[in-house]
């Protein structure tokens, strides 16, 4: 049995269909394939296929604990999936805002395989069911607000008339709230609102003499009444067009709102032509449709015309549209990419204002609110280390090491040379796995299938490899690098894309690709004795970042070999000391810095600086006026971790 079963009796042919479904499961991953790989999960080996659109998925696979904002976004994704649909949760309690999970297992490959097995059974038995219930969550509610067509500043929750001009307020869906700005689910503003934004032509007409129409306010030449504004004729045709497939239409008199009828005609009180409008109950109608018919993107058809174009002047239609760089007026649309976008790190929400396929504006933020992590202080040292290590599933070892070093510095304890060396082994192994994970994501984003699979497979191997196994990876890494050097189209896809000038905000591989040989490891004596030299490129573009990461994988292999041991950092027992300490660790994404204050063996204050926080601020300028594909490559090449972003 599954909660998201499709309505119907499971008999005869449907039994066959259900059996086929149970063998063909497409999974949409929350927070994303990158996190699944970081946890060592091989989705395809477990018998699932990765779906890139929730519409094509039958399983929502939740990997590990996810923060509240992502839970809401996940509910939206679930609502977009078509029935039958199921939820498989790995290694966490069931996320609220989603219906009860159909299967919950542990966060491991074993757990995943077991979960998929149970899901298959559940699908075969219960893909169809007679009693199905709708899924509804607060985040899916659409709020309807009312606004005046002429005075956009007038907005209220109840229907009524405009205090400024007395016109009837028109309903629209409330502008996307925080919870709504998710993947292809931004609440679509109603047509009226949309057009107002771009100032659709308004014409003026006499309430008594509809034949009098002019483009400027004034008085009626026949009766002297003040002309009243209305949306230009073409606009009402739009609405009409949409109403055909949108909702029931009723007709009302612009002057006498109490006159309402289901057919066109004239007003019995003043004789004016009745105007069509959407029936009030469309709100509930659209609302109910939200479950499975969620809208996609914030663009709608009204402004890009279907067939009525002959009636309007292009100059009128486009005069108030924003101008692109090339001077062509186009309809700009806001499209959300994330927080579960297949080509970007899970948890990153990139909202692009697109002018055609060119980025006219952008907003990037992390939906993973790790801000309060360090506000739960004071905390004993052990839990502090665990907290920090658990903060970023993409770099747990680096942050564990950072916490250990800062604690030891505060307490004035020094780790032995052997321990320090072995810790470096662990840090460098994580760097290899992390860079491979980035390569897999890059492959996924650019449709470079071979790279995606090869890098992901190597990442899974490298993740927990011991010294011997790590060294054994060398030939495979060399082969990968060689293959990338002779890959056609790779250079044209990345060279010159996302170019960044050397700048103080750059960190890690991004900085080293721009010619800044800024690496916390060069300041570390142990690293220099192991023969460390930072990677360096000058171009500062996506290609240079790719090369730097490839170089670093090779360097890290050499460092691990030189270090001769791999050991996860464990905090030294520091007792009940007081003091302040600072530590710097070169994480796979760049330098992270932690300052903390100890009091009687407890961490009472801490300050953390992370590379992705800096890089997130670069995005706006980086992708301005870039073509969509290039913009995504540019953002991807920064290798952001939304988990370490501190807003």
């Amino acid at each position, binding site marked *: 049995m599954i909660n998201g079963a*499709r309505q119907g009796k499971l008999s005869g042919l*449907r039994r*066959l*269909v*259900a059996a*086929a*479904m149970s*063998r*063909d499961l497409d999974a949409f991953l929350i927070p994303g394939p990158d996190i699944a790989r970081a946890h060592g999960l091989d989705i*395809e080996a477990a018998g699932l296929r990765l779906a*890139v*659109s929730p*519409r*094509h998925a*039958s399983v929502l696979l939740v990997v590990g604990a996810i923060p509240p904002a992502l839970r809401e976004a996940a509910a939206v994704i679930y609502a977009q999936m*078509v*029935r*039958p649909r199921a939820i498989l949760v790995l290694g966490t309690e069931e996320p609220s805002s989603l219906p009860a999970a159909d299967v919950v297992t542990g966060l491991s490959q074993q757990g995943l395989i077991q979960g998929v097995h149970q899901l298959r059974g559940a699908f075969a038995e219960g*893909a169809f069911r007679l009693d199905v219930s709708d899924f509804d969550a607060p985040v899916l509610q659409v709020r309807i607000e009312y606004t005046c067509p002429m005075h956009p500043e007038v907005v209220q929750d109840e229907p009524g008339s405009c205090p400024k001009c007395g016109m009837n307020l028109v309903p629209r869906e409330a502008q996307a709230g925080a919870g709504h700005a998710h*993947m*292809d689910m931004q609440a*679509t503003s109603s047509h009226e609102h949309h057009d107002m934004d771009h100032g659709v032509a308004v014409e003026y007409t006499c309430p008594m003499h509809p034949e009098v129409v002019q483009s400027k306010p004034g008085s009626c030449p026949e009766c002297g009444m003040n002309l009243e504004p209305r949306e230009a004729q073409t606009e009402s045709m739009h609405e009409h067009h*949409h109403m055909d*497939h*949108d909702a029931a239409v009723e007709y009302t008199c612009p002057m006498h709102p109490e006159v309402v009828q289901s057919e066109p005609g004239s007003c019995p009180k003043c004789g004016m032509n009745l105007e069509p409008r959407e029936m009030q109950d469309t709100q509930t109608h659209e609302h109910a449709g939200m479950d*499975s*018919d*969620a*809208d*996609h*993107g*914030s663009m*709608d*058809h009204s402004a890009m015309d*279907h067939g009525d174009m002959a009636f309007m002047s292009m100059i009128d239609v486009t005069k108030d549209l924003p101008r692109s760089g090339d001077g062509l007026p186009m309809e700009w649309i806001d*499209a959300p990419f994330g927080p579960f*976008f*297949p*080509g970007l790190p899970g948890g990153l929400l990139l909202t692009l204002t*697109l002018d055609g*396929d060119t980025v006219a504006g952008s907003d990037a933020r992390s939906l993973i609110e790790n801000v309060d992590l360090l506000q739960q202080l004071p905390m004993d040292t052990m839990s502090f280390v665990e907290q920090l290590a658990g903060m970023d599933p993409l770099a747990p070892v680096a942050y564990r090491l950072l916490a250990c070093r800062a604690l030891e510095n505060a307490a004035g304890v020094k780790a032995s040379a052997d321990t320090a060396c072995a810790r470096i082994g662990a840090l460098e192994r994580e760097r290899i796995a992390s860079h491979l994970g980035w390569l897999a994501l890059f*492959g*996924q*984003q*650019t*449709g*470079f*299938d071979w*790279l995606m699979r090869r890098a992901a497979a190597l990442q899974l191997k490298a993740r927990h490899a011991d010294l011997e196994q790590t060294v054994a990876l060398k030939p495979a890494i060399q082969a990968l690098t060689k293959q990338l050097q002779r*890959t*056609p*189209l*790779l250079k*044209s*896809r990345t060279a010159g894309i996302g170019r960044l000038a050397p700048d103080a905000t750059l960190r890690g591989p991004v900085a080293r690709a721009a010619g800044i040989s800024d690496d916390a490891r060069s300041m570390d004596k142990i690293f220099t004795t192991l023969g460390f030299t930072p990677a360096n490129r000058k171009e500062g573009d996506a290609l240079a970042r790719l090369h730097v990461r490839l170089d670093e994988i090779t360097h890290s292999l050499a460092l691990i070999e030189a270090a001769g041991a791999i050991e996860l950092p464990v905090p030294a027992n520091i007792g009940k000391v007081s003091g302040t300490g600072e530590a710097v660790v070169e994480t796979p994404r760049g330098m992270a810095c932690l300052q903390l204050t100890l009091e009687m063996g407890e961490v009472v204050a801490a300050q953390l600086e992370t590379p992705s926080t800096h890089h997130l601020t670069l995005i706006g300028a980086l992708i301005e006026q870039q*073509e*969509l*594909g*290039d913009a*995504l490559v540019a953002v991807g090449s920064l290798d952001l971790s939304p988990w370490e972003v501190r807003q």
Partner: protein
Amino acid sequence: MTTVLLLLLLAVGAYLVAVIEAWTTSGRLRLAAPLLAGIALLGRESIVPRKPDQVFFEVAPVLLLISAILAAAVVPLTPDLIITDLATGALFINAALVYVLVALLMAGWGPDGAYAMIGGWRFLGQLIAYAMLIVMPITAVVMRAESLLTTQVVVSQAGLWNIVYQPLGFVLFFIASMALAFLPPFDLTTSKGELAGGVEAEYTGVRLAIFRLGRLALIITLAAATVVFYLGGWQGPLLPPWAWSAIKILVVTATMLLAGRYMPRIREADLLAWCWMFGIPLALLNIFIVGVLVLVFP
């Protein structure tokens, strides 16, 4: 009878494309997988997005399929195994496949979603890139055959296949076919990592099944056309003609599907620039060379 048989063969071909495609991506050869996937898709809800252009949304997948079938109608598998041996066959393939553009634009516009819409417009740009590179190499092929009959095109290669006679044309046509079938690295319109599926993103259930079937039929049709134009069609020793056709078509299909795995998706700007700066001059050169060859060695 031939028509029914050929439509059946087209369906089998589309099925084999699905099997090969799954094999090239996952490395596992599973013969039953597309069947299960198809049944599962038919059993899933097929929903209409909230503010669709109903006509476009419903018609697009069907039109894609029809376009591929129409093109397949003039592709011969043996001298007799052809739905209709049109006197303008070689040209008709090109005409029928133009509706792929229409279908994808409609699929992009229909669901009222940003990803789909961008995907649809991207294909319009793609058409401007590949269209000339479909029709110009075909021109050189029919110059040699001195006929637009597709069967005649095959017969004209009895001595020497076109892949040897006009290799330049083959390369251009092969690349353009991949672009026309929006196969990687030309999958700008359905790209997963950039548009979460693009024009496919909003289709579900039976509509998605038809869309995917249309795409598979398009791939097999283009592979068959490549075989007819450049690989000597049904000609070959020992084996019967239909077997040669089948083998060649499957090999071309596998090559088309494999090539894109080893490179990232092309940039739209690069595609347009290269097609016009290099592709079209090369296609003209090809026509010139073939013209000279035809005159000198009639």
